């Protein structure tokens, strides 16, 4: 079969089983768009800005586990995609980004819409390819998908010069079924000796804790993590990226850890004698001040990426491998072991943890006359029976969603953890809804974040992706304001917007339903109404208490045991209302 480069790309995507491409046309990809026009197997989703394309593909990937596919043109198309590529890179999301490039003979001549995409994307991709020979195109696409989805996943850019896709030049096409690369062999199973040592340490523990992260979600190891944890009876804490990998309603779950984690999770970490870190990377938002991190603990660390091990925190027993496989290996050894977890020590440990739980670190003023953002998330949880896909942007609303929506399943909580990209939530929700048209998809956002990619409301209409946007509108960049309150004596430098659009009118202008909510008693009925409108995107503009802060909190330079808890409740806020 002889095909042009453009046809080869489309055929390769079909052979790879790609369902959707998120993209935006332009000069360098016109041949490709012509090939898209002439087929209907791979569906193209036209976004309104290339950043939206990357986040939508990212949301699709996070929800399904399949790689997201993006197509952008050269120059500004490529640079606009960078934020979304970096977002996927930081959270290890499989993504293949096809960028157009100027024709080979003019590369390097500062041609119209030329940018060195290979150079610009290099620090934020798992790998990238510049295609210089059309006969290598199919193989390169195969490699891109292989690299993006195997090992520690990540985004891969394939930069394709325009002349490579020339419809007049046809070459034989064959898509490789399998590909091997001599320079790339990700580890699979863990080292047996290390696993044995880990089991010995785990079973000898008096104050153990299981600290699991996004790697468990990415590695589809949620069932194994749950079995492993139940077998041992040890407390489990999840990172922001790991939420849902272990059921939040399970009695062994002690909440998220880290900067805005629960008091009990952070205290448990601090006092523990053995930590098993599973698919987590000791991020600075998790560890707090490194010198103060878990002073009494021996640490076991399972990760597919050797470079994640002992990067910030020195570990005692490293195990490199896929978390799923390693957990299976651990479960088998624990089941076969004569030594059992120390019942007495564990009982004392759980008693201690229950005392920390009794602090009720997530309590807030439920009698306020203003809408408390926490209340909105709790109501969202109830109205969706805890079974929605929830995307978020970045800031206070993100933390509240993580704290108050109890995720029982993996891939339900979709947020930009590592890069912290405002503007992620809305396009990501579109990607999720395309993957799961029957599911409830909510985008929890704020009035600052939503404006960063709000143009995608137009995409949501065009492709009929009825999502529910819960805009926690506090008329501040809340997280910035919170830090300014705590560390800059309430000098609110540019964390306030003087001209916030009428979101209800804006949503309507985009062809959606807009509802404004001002009072606590309106929250529940509005949410019910919104989710009952199955075929409409609904924008809920929720006017919340603008002085509310995210608690508890580990402030900069402090350790897990030194959390700032909520003190007086409700007083200042209702004063403002009056």
């Amino acid at each position, binding site marked *: 079969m002889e095909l042009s480069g453009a046809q080869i790309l489309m055929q390769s995507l079909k052979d790879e089983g790609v369902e959707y491409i998120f993209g935006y046309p332009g000069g360098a990809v016109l041949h490709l768009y012509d090939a898209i026009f002439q087929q209907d197997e791979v569906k193209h989703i036209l976004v309104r800005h290339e950043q939206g394309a990357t986040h939508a593909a990212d949301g699709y990937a996070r929800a399904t586990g399949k790689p997201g596919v993006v197509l952008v043109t050269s120059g500004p198309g490529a640079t606009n995609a960078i934020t979304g590529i970096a977002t996927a890179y930081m959270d290890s999301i499989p993504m293949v980004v096809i960028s157009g490039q100027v024709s080979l003979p003019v590369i390097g001549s500062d041609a119209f819409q030329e940018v060195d995409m*290979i150079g610009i994307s290099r620090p934020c991709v798992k790998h990238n390819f510049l295609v210089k020979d059309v006969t290598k195109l199919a193989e390169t696409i195969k490699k891109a998908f292989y690299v993006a989805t195997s090992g520690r996943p990540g985004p891969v850019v394939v930069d394709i010069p325009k002349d490579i896709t020339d419809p007049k030049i046809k070459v034989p096409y064959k898509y490789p079924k399998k590909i091997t690369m*001599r*320079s790339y062999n990700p580890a699979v199973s863990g080292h047996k000796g290390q696993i044995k040592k880990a089991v010995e340490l785990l079973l000898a523990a008096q104050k153990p804790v299981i600290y699991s992260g996004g790697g468990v979600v990415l590695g589809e190891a949620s069932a194994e993590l749950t079995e492993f944890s139940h077998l041992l009876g040890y407390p489990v804490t999840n990172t922001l990226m790991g939420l849902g990998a272990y059921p939040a309603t399970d009695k062994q779950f002690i909440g998220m850890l880290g900067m805005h984690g629960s008091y009990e999770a952070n205290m448990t970490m601090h006092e523990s004698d053995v930590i098993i870190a599973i698919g987590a990377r000791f991020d600075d938002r998790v560890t707090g001040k490194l010198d103060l991190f878990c002073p009494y603990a021996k640490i076991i660390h399972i990760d597919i990426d050797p*470079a994640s091990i*002992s*990067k910030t925190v020195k570990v005692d027993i490293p195990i490199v491998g896929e978390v799923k496989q390693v957990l299976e290996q651990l479960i088998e050894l624990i089941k076969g072991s004569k030594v059992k977890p120390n019942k007495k020590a564990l009982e004392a440990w759980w008693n201690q943890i229950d005392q920390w739980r009794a602090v009720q670190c997530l309590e807030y003023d439920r009698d306020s006359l203003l809408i408390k953002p926490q209340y909105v998330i709790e109501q969202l949880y109830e109205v969706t029976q805890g079974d929605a896909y929830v995307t978020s942007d970045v800031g206070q609303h993100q933390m509240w969603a993580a704290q108050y929506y109890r995720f029982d399943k993996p891939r339900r909580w979709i947020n930009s953890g590592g890069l912290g990209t405002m503007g992620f939530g809305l396009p990501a929700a579109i990607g999720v809804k395309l993957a799961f048209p029957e599911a409830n998809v909510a985008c929890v956002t704020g009035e600052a974040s939503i404006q960063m990619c709000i143009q995608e409301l137009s995409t949501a209409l065009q492709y009929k992706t009825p999502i529910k946007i819960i805009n926690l509108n506090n008329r501040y960049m809340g997280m910035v304001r919170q830090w300014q309150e705590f560390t800059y004596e309430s000098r609110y430098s540019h964390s306030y917007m003087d001209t916030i659009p009428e979101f209800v009118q804006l949503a309507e202008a985009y062809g959606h339903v807009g509802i404004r909510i001002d009072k606590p008693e309106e929250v529940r009925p509005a949410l019910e109404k919104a989710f009952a409108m199955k075929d409409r995107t609904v924008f809920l503009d929720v006017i919340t208490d603008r002085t509310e802060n995210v608690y508890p909190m580990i402030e900069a330079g402090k350790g897990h045991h030194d959390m700032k808890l909520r003190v007086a409740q409700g007083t200042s806020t209702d004063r403002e209302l009056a």
Partner: protein
Amino acid sequence: MRHIISILIENESGALSRVAGLFSARGYNIESLAVAVTEDPSLSRITLVTRGSEEVIEQITKQLNKLIDVVKLIDLVESDHIERELMMVKIKTSEHTRAEIRSLADIFRGKILDVTPTSYVVEITGPSEKLDAFVAAIDSETIIEVVRSGPTGISRGEKGLHL
């Protein structure tokens, strides 16, 4: 401590920039870098000299291994190895100094590659310290330019870095 990391890498455009970019992005330091194709034209070999604590060097080798184009690498300092660097020095000469420079070059087993009425180009090969010593032995006023390849190295014995 000083480490010599020897890397086998796919001989593809942009491969070197991945290595160099990794060092600048993560704040590691490169003292020297020598690159050339190997006997297998699809592979290049990079010899990279860097300094850092054990933890930093461990991260450097792990991060380098993570690069898709990197096939294999070793830290030569971990075992017995031979290190060589090539240097060419252009020196101003006069009737009075020529003999002295010639004998100095002899002592360092150097070669004189180019002669003009007013200059010599001397080639010296050896471990980096020997090259330093030669430069120190020459009157700095007379040095026109110094070109160094950066060290390359190979391990002793049968074992080697290959596919």
